[in-house]
């Protein structure tokens, strides 16, 4: 690029993306973005991954972002291209994933005219983006791109959308790369209040039954090491929410696994009986708290989160600390080491013993079978065979919960799932994005037969780009999670939850040029996994016909206190009926 030369909007956009370090775009072309696509035709630094649906493009960018921590970037056309991104954007927004989504728009003079393929995407996405822009003047473009990336990745990350009218992509101006961002109204608070942190340290010292509840913020802020130091130094057990999975090693003896609706008995018990909750980068989602009035009734709460609106939104908090989890924990750990002299091992002995008893009393289990494939068994086998060295993505439903329960995650960014929005169809494109970021890693989508069909067209994307994503389909012939609720709460009236027609996934995979494998008996599971995960070096669908009657346990009925759990062993007992009645 020569100095003093005027550039078109498309050239400026590409140049800005390069300066932001973008190597991959996920997208789909159309009329108003053709000038930008034309620039990409022979660009050597940026490669566009052509998905088969714009939703797939956003989820792929999202998977890329969750796997790397870097922003995922999407480029699509106006109108239907733009509206197809909405589910993906909402998914990323709920889980605080940094994305920059660039949508083409009809020329500025046609905006508001109901022009061909016009959609008010800025209006549509206003509530599900962290921020969005309509660029009306090519002179603003570089500043907007810079601000978009800045907003997407800083503070509590999130998706940012840039709507780019066609005339702006051809308009010419001098390219000026802004060195700094202005944004007077945007100043995320990173450092926690020192006095509050000090108070927190003393509360931890005084607590006899403390629990750490770690959420996605631990992973986003990179506080893995700091969390471990806090937990191990002060001997506090850690439960990781669905979004926090991988933020603390599940093989550590202080790990309690996941809390909440399908959480472990011991995590929920520990929370309910605790005298101090240390909530880190989590937002007390209703799937975690159950009935909020009876959540952690005897605990004081320290809440550390970068987003002030997350604090005191749905539970009372004693020590609110707004700040970046990693930075706050660094100070907290230091304070605990210098200002607090406690015999931690001694102080915590009784509490850790209690937790150990709960772990023994009701571990996560399922009934093994020689006759039918248990979905939990497939997940356990995946863990056993990979030894945890893989990136697991999930779809939504029972498959997602079993993937969370029966695999042990020890490192951040090894578990990628749509938590807040619970988007079926997320896992496969997300796996494609993660695989693109880590070509040599084993990337496995643990899927349901319903969910996989929501973005199954992305088989083409995976095959074309030689991305050896492994899809494990826990095929129960049902929208299993829906069926589970219908069985438990709607007298087994399976209203429209049986899929009736499930395609032959092996043939579907083969039709796209991927490999397909099937297991129908427990004895075949290991062989199919070994073949699919390790021998076959391309995209694979592994179809496991699993026991359709299987349910996810423990389960806290929606709206009940979290220690009000149903267990598989209750199925035979009158106990279950009693517990269900209390809820209804």
């Amino acid at each position: 690029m020569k100095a003093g030369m005027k550039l078109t909007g498309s050239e400026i956009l590409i140049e800005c993306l390069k300066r932001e370090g973008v190597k991959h775009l996920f997208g789909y072309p159309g009329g108003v973005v053709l000038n930008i696509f034309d620039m990409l035709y022979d660009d050597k630094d940026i490669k566009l991954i052509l998905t088969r649906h714009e939703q797939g493009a956003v989820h792929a960018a999202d998977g890329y972002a969750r796997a790397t921590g870097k922003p995922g970037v999407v480029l699509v056309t106006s109108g239907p291209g733009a509206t197809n991104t909405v589910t993906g954007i909402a998914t990323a927004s709920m889980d605080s994933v940094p994305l920059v989504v660039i949508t083409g728009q009809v020329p500025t003079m046609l905006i508001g005219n109901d022009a061909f393929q016009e959609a008010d995407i800025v209006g549509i996405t206003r509530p599900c983006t962290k921020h969005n822009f309509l660029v009306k003047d090519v002179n603003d473009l570089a500043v907007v791109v810079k601000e978009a990336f800045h907003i997407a990745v800083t503070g509590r990350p999130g998706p940012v959308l840039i709507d780019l009218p066609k005339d702006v992509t051809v308009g010419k101006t001098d390219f000026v790369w802004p060195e700094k961002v202005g944004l007077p109204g945007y100043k995320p608070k990173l450092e926690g209040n020192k006095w509050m942190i000090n108070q927190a340290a003393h509360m931890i010292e005084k607590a006899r039954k403390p629990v750490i509840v770690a959420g996605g913020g631990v992973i986003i802020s990179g506080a893995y090491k700091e969390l471990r130091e806090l937990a191990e130094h002060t001997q506090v057990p850690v439960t990781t929410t669905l979004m926090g999975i991988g933020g603390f090693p599940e093989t550590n003896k202080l790990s309690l696994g996941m809390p909440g609706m399908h959480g472990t008995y011991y995590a929920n018990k520990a929370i309910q009986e605790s005298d101090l909750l240390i909530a880190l980068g989590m937002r007390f989602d209703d799937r975690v708290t159950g009935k909020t009035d009876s959540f952690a009734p005897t605990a004081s709460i320290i809440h550390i989160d970068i987003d002030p609106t997350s604090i005191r939104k749905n539970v009372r908090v004693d020590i609110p600390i707004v700040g970046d989890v990693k930075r706050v924990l660094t100070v907290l750990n230091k304070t605990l080491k210098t200002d607090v002299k406690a015999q931690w091992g001694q102080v915590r002995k009784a509490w850790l013993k209690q937790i150990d008893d709960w772990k023994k009393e009701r571990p996560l289990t399922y009934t093994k079978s020689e006759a039918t494939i248990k979905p939990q068994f497939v997940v356990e086998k995946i863990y056993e065979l990979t030894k945890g060295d893989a990136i697991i993505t999930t779809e939504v439903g029972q498959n997602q919960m079993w993937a969370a329960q029966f695999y042990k995650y020890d490192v951040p960014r090894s578990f990628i799932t749509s938590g807040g929005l619970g988007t079926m169809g997320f896992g496969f494109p997300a796996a494609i994005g993660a695989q693109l970021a880590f070509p040599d890693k084993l990337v496995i989508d643990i899927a349901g037969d319903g969910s996989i069909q929501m973005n199954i067209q992305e088989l083409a994307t995976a095959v074309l780009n030689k991305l050896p994503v492994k899809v494990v389909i826990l095929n129960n012939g049902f929208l299993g999670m829906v069926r589970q609720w219908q069985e438990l709460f709607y007298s087994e009236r399976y209203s429209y939850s049986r899929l009736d027609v499930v395609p032959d996934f092996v043939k579907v995979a083969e039709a796209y040029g991927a490999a397909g494998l099937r297991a129908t008996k427990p004895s075949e599971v290991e062989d199919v996994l070994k073949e699919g995960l390790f021998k076959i070096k391309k995209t694979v669908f592994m179809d496991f016909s699993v026991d359709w009657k299987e349910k996810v346990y423990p389960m806290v009925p929606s709206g009940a206190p979290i220690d009000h759990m149903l267990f598989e062993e209750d199925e035979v007992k009158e106990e279950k009926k009693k517990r269900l009645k209390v809820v209804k």
Partner: protein
Amino acid sequence: MRHTITLLVENKFGVLSRISGLFSGRGYNIESLSVGEEIDPEYSQMTIVTSGDDLIIEQITKQLNKLVDVIKVTDVTEFEHVEREMIIIKVTPKPEKKTEVLNLAGIFRGRVVDSSENTYTIEVTGDEKKIEAFIGLMKPMGIKDLVRTGKVAILREGYKQ
């Protein structure tokens, strides 16, 4: 409880819908909202009157603060401040009540800005109590039309946070 919140925002397209969308999307209500340019036309000043318990008001101010285009949020309810609203009211008094209307307007320091054979259009400015009182007095006179600006508010000098 009712709160009056003032906002300094970037004078950019879409800001108003971001703010009103935040209220509607989260189920908060807006009793009144007024917007005008600041001295520097790059910024606008807004006054929003809303209501809710302490936790809701806390959420509202935090959520407003979170918006990228919002630079400053002040819940002036907590501080010494001045609030004003203007109304323009068109009344149709019976002939024998005309003088009374004019007298009342005078007492409220209102101004008659238009009149016709059987209407007076009166402008009155004041705080909520005064405005409500004036409307109350005009009711029996026959109100044909009434428009109000919504409140604007500013902190008293020397009482800043």
